[in-house]
């Protein structure tokens, strides 16, 4: 019985947890509830994933109102993949968060933070699972608004400004998205994504459809932080509490990419290759610029968190590059990088949070000789950094392989050069940390003082995952390929 309502439970459980945490007004209980909710969410997501593997797409009518009039929750290969990713990262970050948040946020605000965390999780899961275009907007804003609050709880006062900037840009993005959906609704008469896909083929007037595509793409690009609409990201990730950065870096932009994938390939599909609107080419070009420019900026950054944030912008470029190339391998690369980068970046932010806790600073200059003090943490950063570079044996390599393969198949040699350049730049900025931590004389205390185990263990779990998913790709790659194939089939 419960198994039938898993799609609803995926969203409802964290949604109810949020006000519960606020009512209880206790930081500890709030953390406990949030952690329990995230683990439950992971179980539900995995169960859904397995069911989709066995039985195909699950369609769940919310409140028993039949689609396309009622809101439908639709779990298919792509959405179940994203659900597992988001719930996995939440389940790993929350145990980590207990000590990290305790150190960075005043204790009277803890329960509020965990309530917002649960709400953000609810929003992200909802985006991935819903099959209704406007419902996507609602959940998008739920996750975004709670995200703004989470960021604003950061210790540094620049967190407030970053949250405000993110609010402005994020709201513009979401509103653009709504405009696009509105235009689509006008042309097709439905808000159900699957229904829209079918009806769009019959629409004669092309211009509103193109306008809708443009608005949706730009709106989501703001959420995805695609260059040049990425300005909010460095501030938001750098000044938020470490656990928040860890979670959001791995999920928020990825889920927005999911929505873009859903619209571009699942709904618009064939119309993407209309002459006069070189959308895929523009995406490819912007991705290439993101990959190189953001990596260059990361190379020059002196703050470790800002470095990771710019690295995220570059890595998001990888994801949208696969999207822009548009063939099966490209889409596979995009989807698998949602997973690979989510795992890698969250691991890195968690480790850096541990560094911030022990060393008191994230400025590279203050971290000289850190490897003597925190060897396990630093080695974890090195391994996860190797995944960013794309060394074989790590998850990042899998993405790189498919991206290069996709570019070669599309005949775009310049893209291959860009990918190579970006990897080398990634190697350069990862090696800045290695040099500072390992090869410089320590300026601070040298006694062994690792981050606490409850912070180190979840971080290392994800670091191990980076290596594991670089060798055993049966879940990550197979799931991505299924999703990519499904998307392209819908595009026919």
């Amino acid at each position, binding site marked *: 019985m419960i198994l039938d309502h898993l799609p609803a439970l995926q969203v409802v459980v964290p949604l109810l947890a949020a006000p519960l945490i606020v009512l209880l007004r206790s930081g500890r209980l709030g953390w406990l509830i949030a952690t329990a909710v995230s683990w439950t969410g992971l179980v539900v997501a995995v169960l859904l994933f397995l069911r989709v593997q066995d039985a195909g797409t699950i369609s769940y009518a919310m409140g028993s109102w039949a689609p396309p009039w009622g809101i439908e929750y639709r779990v298919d290969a792509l959405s179940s993949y994203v659900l597992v990713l988001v719930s996995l990262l939440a389940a790993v970050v929350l145990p980590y968060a207990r000590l990290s948040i305790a150190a960075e946020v005043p204790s009277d605000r803890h329960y509020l933070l965990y309530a917002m965390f649960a709400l953000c999780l609810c929003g992200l899961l909802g985006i991935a699972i819903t099959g209704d275009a*406007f419902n996507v*907007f*609602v959940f998008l*804003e739920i996750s975004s*608004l709670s995200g*703004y*609050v989470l960021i*604003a709880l950061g210790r*540094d*006062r*620049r967190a*407030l*400004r970053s*949250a*405000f900037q993110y*609010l*402005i840009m994020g*709201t*513009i993005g*979401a*509103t653009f998205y*709504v*405009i696009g959906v*509105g235009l689509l*609704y*006008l042309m097709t008469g439905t*808000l159900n994504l699957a229904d829209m896909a079918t009806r769009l083929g019959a629409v004669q007037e092309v211009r509103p459809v193109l306008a809708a595509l443009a608005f949706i793409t730009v709106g989501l690009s703001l959420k995805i932080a695609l260059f040049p609409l990425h300005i909010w990201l460095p501030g938001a990730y750098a000044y938020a509490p470490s656990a928040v950065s860890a979670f959001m870096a791995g999920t928020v932009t990825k889920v927005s990419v999911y929505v873009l994938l859903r619209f571009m390939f699942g709904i618009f599909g064939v119309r993407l290759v209309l002459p006069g609107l070189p959308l895929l080419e523009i995406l490819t070009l912007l991705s290439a610029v993101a990959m190189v420019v953001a990596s260059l900026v990361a190379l020059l950054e002196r*703050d470790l968190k800002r470095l990771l944030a710019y690295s995220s912008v570059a890595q998001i470029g990888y994801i949208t590059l696969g999207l822009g190339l548009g063939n099966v391998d490209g889409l596979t690369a995009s989807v698998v990088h949602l997973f690979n980068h989510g795992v890698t970046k969250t691991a890195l932010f968690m480790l850096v949070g541990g560094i911030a806790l022990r060393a*008191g*600073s*994230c*400025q590279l*200059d*203050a971290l000289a000789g850190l490897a003597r003090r925190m060897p396990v943490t630093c080695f974890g950063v090195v391994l996860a950094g190797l995944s960013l570079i794309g060394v074989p044996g790590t998850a990042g390599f899998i993405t790189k392989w498919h991206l290069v393969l996709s570019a070669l198949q599309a005949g775009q040699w310049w893209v291959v050069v860009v990918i190579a350049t970006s990897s080398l730049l990634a190697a350069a900025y990862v090696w800045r940390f290695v040099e500072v931590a390992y090869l410089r004389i320590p300026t601070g205390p040298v006694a062994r003082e690792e981050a606490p185990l409850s912070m180190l263990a979840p971080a290392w779990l994800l670091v191990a995952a980076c290596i594991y998913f670089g060798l055993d790709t049966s879940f990550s790659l197979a799931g991505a390929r299924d999703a990519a194939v499904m998307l392209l089939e819908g595009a026919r």
Partner: protein
Amino acid sequence: MNLAGHYSYWMTILLMVAGLYIVVARSNLIKKLIGLGIFQTSVYLLYIAPGKLIGGTAPIVSEQFAVYSNPLPHVLILTAIVVGVATLALGLALVVRIHEEYGSIEEDAILEIDQHTAADQGRDGQPS
């Protein structure tokens, strides 16, 4: 092209562009929020105006009428208004906190204060 008949779309465009312009061009944080609100209002108009079908009546079932105006956009926009209100409230709360921390709500002034602090920190080597 029926210019006069499309006046609702013209208003939509006007509000949309005006709102975006205010967000971008004004450095006062509250004015940015106002611009954002205007921008969002344009979207409401975009949805609702086409909902009124020509010759359509209020969406209450009755045997006398065959064409009804579409109530769905109204539902959607109610949701969007709520989201807009929440955003505005959150934005204003942030502005209040920013004013507490920085003493100003002009973006240029805030950026300058941040740059000075960063320069000081860089000199003293203080952690952020």
